[in-house]
C-alpha cells in the first residue's frame, strides 16, 4: 500500500497539471483579495451601498464567488488576515480547483488504463482508492496552506498591511475546512468511479459545489409541507459543499462539530463506496 501511495505522490509531483491547477487557484485567491480591496474602497465611498451590504450581509451564499466583503470591514479598521482567508475559503474557489485536480488526476489514469500495469501488485484494488485519498488530502492541505500565503501577500500588496489576529480560531476553522475539502474531493473521486467520465464528473462536481442541489430544497418543501415551518431548512446544511460555505470563524461549536462529523463521515463513506466499485469492476 505504501508503494502505491508513493507512486501516486510521484505522479502528482511530476505532473505539470498539478502545479498549474495549484498556481491558478493561488492567482484566483490573489485576484479575490484585489477585488475585496476595490470593494472596500467602493463601500467606504458609497454609504447607501454599505447600508445594503449591512442589510444582506448575514445571508448564506451557497454558490461560488470571488472578492467578498463583510460590513464590519468597512469601518476603517484593518481587516484581520484570518477573516480574509476564511471568506476566500468559504467562497468555494479552492473547492472548484480541487474538483478540477481530482478529475484530472483520476481521469488521466482512467483514460490511459495505467492500472492494468500495476493491478497485480495489490491484493485489493481498494488500495488504489485509498492512495488517491492520500493525494487528495495532500493537495487540499497544500491549497489551503497556499491560500493563507497568497492572502498574506495579497493583503500586503492590495491593502498595505497584515492584521494577524484570532490565530487559534483560524487554525480550527482551517482544519475543519481541510476535512470538508478532502471529503468533497473524495465525493468527486466517487463520481468519477461511478461515471468513468471526466467531463460528467467535472460538470457535476462544479455544479454541486456551486449549490445546484438547492433545487432539492424546493422539491422537499413542496413534498413535505412540515419543512416550511423550519425557517433555515436547506439540504446544503448537510452536505460537505454546503458546510464549506456555511462555516465561519464565528460559527458556533455545534456547527463546527456537525461539519467535522459530516466531513469524516463522507470521507469514510466515499472511500468505502469507491473501493467496492473498483474492486468489483473489471479493469478496461
Amino acid at each position, binding site marked *: 500500500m505504501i508503494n502505491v501511495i508513493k*507512486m501516486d505522490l510521484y505522479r502528482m509531483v511530476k505532473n505539470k497539471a498539478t502545479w498549474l491547477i495549484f498556481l491558478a487557484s493561488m492567482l484566483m485567491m490573489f485576484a479575490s483579495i484585489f477585488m475585496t480591496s476595490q470593494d472596500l474602497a467602493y463601500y467606504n465611498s458609497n454609504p447607501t451601498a454599505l447600508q445594503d451590504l449591512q442589510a444582506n450581509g448575514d445571508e448564506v451564499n451557497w454558490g461560488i464567488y470571488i472578492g467578498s466583503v463583510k460590513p464590519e470591514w468597512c469601518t476603517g479598521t484593518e481587516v484581520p488576515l484570518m477573516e480574509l482567508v476564511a471568506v476566500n475559503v468559504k467562497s468555494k474557489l479552492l473547492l472548484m480547483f480541487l474538483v478540477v485536480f481530482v478529475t484530472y488526476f483520476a481521469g*488521466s489514469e482512467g483514460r*490511459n488504463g495505467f492500472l492494468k500495469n*500495476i493491478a497485480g501488485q495489490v491484493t485489493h484494488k481498494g488500495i488504489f482508492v485509498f492512495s488517491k485519498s492520500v493525494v487528495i488530502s495532500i493537495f487540499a492541505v497544500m491549497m489551503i496552506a497556499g491560500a493563507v500565503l497568497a492572502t498574506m501577500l495579497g493583503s500586503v500588496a492590495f491593502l498595505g498591511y497584515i492584521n494577524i489576529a484570532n490565530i487559534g480560531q483560524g487554525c480550527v476553522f482551517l482544519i475543519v475546512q481541510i476535512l470538508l475539502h478532502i471529503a468533497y474531493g473524495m465525493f468527486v473521486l466517487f463520481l468519477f468511479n461511478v461515471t468513468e467520465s471526466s467531463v460528467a464528473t467535472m460538470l457535476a462536481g462544479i455544479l454541486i459545489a456551486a449549490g445546484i442541489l438547492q433545487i432539492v430544497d424546493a422539491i422537499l418543501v413542496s413534498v413535505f409541507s412540515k419543512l416550511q415551518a423550519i425557517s433555515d431548512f436547506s439540504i446544503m446544511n448537510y452536505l460537505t459543499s454546503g458546510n464549506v460555505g456555511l462555516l465561519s470563524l464565528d460559527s458556533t461549536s455545534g456547527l463546527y462539530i456537525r461539519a467535522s462529523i459530516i466531513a469524516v463521515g463522507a470521507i469514510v463513506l466515499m472511500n468505502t463506496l469507491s473501493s467496492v466499485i473498483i474492486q468489483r469492476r473489471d479493469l478496461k
Partner: protein
Amino acid sequence: MMNELLSTNSLTKKYKHQTAVSDISINVCQGEIYGLVGKNGAGKTTLLKMIGGLCKPTSGDITFMGYSGKERRKILSRIGLLIEAPSLYTGMTAYDNLKLKCICTGINKKGYIEEILETVGLCEARNKKVSQYSLGMKQRLGIAMALVGEPDLLLLDEPINGLDPQGIVEIRNTLLDLNKKKNITIIISSHILEELSKVSTKFGFINNGELIKELSHTELDIACSEHIELEMPDPTRALPVLDRLGFTHYQVVDSHTIHIFERLEDSGHIAMELSKCEIPITSISVASKTFENYFLEMIGGVYND
C-alpha cells in the same frame, strides 16, 4: 520434462447476454512461447485479461505457479502484461512511466530502469515524452513496463498490431531474446499468423470463445508442410502397402485422408501399387498449406486480417 507454469480449467467469461470465453482449458509450461491464434473478437483478449487478473472469470479456475483461487492474487505480481494498447502517461517520459511502476513494485535499484530500456532498445529516448513516440516505440515501452519486476509470465496482446516491418522484426527479436536469455514464459496473441509462427513454440486456436485446437510448433509444421495428400474411401487398407513401400513418415488425418511427408516424387508409384492391390483411391496430389490456410480450414470461415 518442462514444468507447468499456468493452467486454466474450463475458463468461462460471460457479459450479460454474450459469452466471450467458453470452457477454455490450456496448459503453458515454463519457457514456452504460447501463441493464441484467433480472429478479432474470438476471445483472446478476454482470456489474457482473466489470466492477468484484470477481470474475473464467470466460472472455471486458473492455476499459476501452483496457486489457484483467491491465493493466486498473491502472485499476480509475477505476471507482466501488455493488453490491448500500451497503458502509459503520454505527458510523461519513458523513464517516469517506468519509475512509476518501479515505485509501485518496490524496486529502487540504481540503473534498473536504464537496464530495462536497454533491453527494449529505448535507452536513447528515455527522456522523451511518450506523446512524441512512434507506435513501435510505444509498444516497446509497453513491453518494458511489463518487464518491470522480472515477471515469470509475460502476457502480450497483439503487440505487433500496426507496426511497420522493421518494428515487427524488432519486437520479435526482443521477445525471442527475453525468452532465451531470461527464460521468461510468454503468451502472445495475434491475428498476424505468419508472424506468430516465427516466435511461438506452442499454439492455441480460439474461435467464438472456444479453444478449438492446441498444437506444438512441430505439429503445426507437419500439418502445414508439403506432403502427398491421398484421398480414399478406406485409408486403413492402404497402410500395409505404404509400409511395404518403405514409407514411415505419414499420418492418417481423417477417415478419408492420409498425408505422406516424404518422397514427394513417388506419388505415381504409390498410385500404381494401390491399384495393383485393388485399393480404390479418390485422388492423389502434392499439397501444402500456409499457416493462415490451415487456420481458415480449421475455423471454416473467413479470416479477418
